[in-house]
């Protein structure tokens, strides 16, 4: 057992807190984008994950994901209820900080991943159903994928897949599942009907994006698990990609229309998504091409999707699914030999890494999509996924939560 380093621990503690803050941030990022009558319900879908996954993770999630592996597929339950997870460092993960800190840091990732999905189902999904879905998806999709990619015995990890802070586990996983769930659920009844279903509070979107950006320093630079050069490098790569993507998106939206505020906010988030798997593996200045690239990919994906009847409402797939995919592949391209303690990526002549990245991407795409369809279908057939038409038209705030965001009931 190695000794605790107070500096590393300080950085990991605050990183954990930063990632926690992302979930309320997301609640506002999403909550601002829906109509007044669904503001609370949208916020609730994110916020409840703090409670729900916060409990499930310490009970069994951490053990399934990071516990002793059963064949590289899933952890056993030997760390159930934080059994054996204590103040001393783990011998495997983050060996200079208390094991509890590493556990908590990972918890915040699980929480926000589940919250991310909810952006696709706002304004029409029953609260009870999203709750049941969250439990099932967390257990059957998140924990296994986290195990494969991040557990030191996980099969994708062993294959050499690079995912610094969660491109596959968090973003592809959430984005693809969001798409699957939106397909099952069908569009909102007012979707593409000439009704204004736009953002009721763009400042909330901005404060959400601001908190996400802020928290993402913990997400990415915290994934260095130490306080030093690697964290610094990931930190700068993160900021650079966010900035480049925000700027690119602003110009794109200007080209087609006007430089929108929701555009620059969305662009920032897309940049943060794409740099997530790459942050600690690429030279920080590579944040610029990655940021520009992801803005192009996501922006056009969003335009395309918007032409269809697929109501993937707040573009979780376009941003996180596609952004995560782009980032995973970009990691294979831009990874630097110096930072990966290995062969680097395509630019270092290591074409194999691109292949591994593609494989990991395809695996997570497929698994997330099929599992989500399955879970969703079962819920649909038993308790139903959608609220009634009347409830949808009154809004989910009142029909699901008995409250109104701005106290305007009479």
């Amino acid at each position, binding site marked *: 057992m190695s000794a605790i380093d107070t500096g590393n621990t300080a950085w990991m503690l605050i990183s954990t807190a930063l990632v926690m803050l992302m979930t309320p941030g997301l609640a506002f990022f999403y909550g601002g984008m829906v109509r007044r009558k669904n503001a609370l319900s949208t916020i609730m879908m994110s916020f409840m994950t703090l409670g729900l996954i916060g409990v499930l993770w310490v009970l069994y999630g951490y053990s399934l994901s990071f516990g002793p592996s059963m064949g590289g597929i899933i952890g056993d339950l030997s760390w159930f209820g934080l059994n054996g997870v204590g103040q001393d460092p783990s011998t495997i993960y983050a060996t200079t900080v208390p094991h509890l800190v590493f556990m908590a840091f990972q918890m915040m990732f699980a929480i926000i991943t589940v919250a991310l999905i909810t952006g696709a189902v706002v304004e029409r999904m029953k609260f009870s159903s999203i709750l049941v879905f969250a439990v099932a998806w967390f257990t059957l999709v998140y924990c296994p994928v986290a195990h494969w990619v991040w557990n030191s015995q996980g099969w994708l990890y062993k294959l050499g897949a690079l995912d610094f802070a969660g491109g596959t586990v968090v973003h592809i996983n959430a984005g693809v599942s969001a798409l699957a769930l939106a397909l099952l659920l069908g569009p909102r009844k007012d979707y593409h009907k000439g009704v204004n279903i736009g953002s009721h509070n763009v400042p909330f979107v901005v404060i959400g994006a601001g908190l996400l950006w802020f928290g993402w320093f913990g997400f990415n630079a915290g994934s260095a698990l130490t306080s030093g050069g690697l964290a610094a490098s990931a930190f700068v790569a993160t900021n650079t990609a966010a900035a480049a993507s925000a700027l690119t998106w602003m110009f794109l939206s200007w080209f087609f229309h006007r430089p929108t505020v929701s555009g620059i906010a969305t662009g920032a988030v897309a940049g943060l998504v794409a740099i997530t798997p790459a942050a600690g593996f690429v030279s920080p200045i590579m944040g610029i091409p990655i940021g520009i690239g992801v803005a192009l990919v996501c922006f056009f994906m969003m335009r395309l999707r918007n032409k269809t009847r697929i109501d993937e409402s707040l573009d979780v797939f376009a941003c996180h699914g596609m952004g995560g995919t782009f980032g995973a592949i970009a990691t294979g391209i831009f990874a630097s030999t110096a930072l990966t303690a290995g062969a680097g990526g395509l630019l270092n002549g290591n074409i194999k890494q691109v292949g591994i990245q593609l494989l990991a991407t395809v695996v997570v795409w497929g698994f997330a999509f099929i599992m989500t369809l399955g879970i969703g279908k079962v819920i649909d057939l038993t308790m139903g996924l959608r609220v009634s038409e*009347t409830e949808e*038209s*009154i809004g989910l705030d009142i029909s699901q939560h008995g409250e109104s965001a701005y106290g305007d009931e009479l």
Partner: protein
Amino acid sequence: MKKIEAIVREERFHLIKIALEEKGFISMTVSDIMGRGKQRGISLKWRVGEHRIEFLPKKKIEIFVEDKDCQIVVDTIIERAKTGAVGDGKIFVSPVEEVYKIRTGETGPEAI
């Protein structure tokens, strides 16, 4: 002249606006109101029993028209506002004595 006050579903406003435009009725004044009709709003089933949402948000459209245009505006609104379900709304027509166009000071039909 007449004042037409139509209280309609929020989500129908767009359709009504376009239909009126096509018939040449561009001018209008719109506000957000809360309303309930004879049905006393809508009843939802909650775990603890039935719950009634009494007041629902609606759009109020006010249009001032010459007498001769009144019927066509009313008919156009009804056509587009109607879903056949409870809550479609109402239209009220009342008399107006005079209109002034502030910019020009004109009154009467030219001012509308």
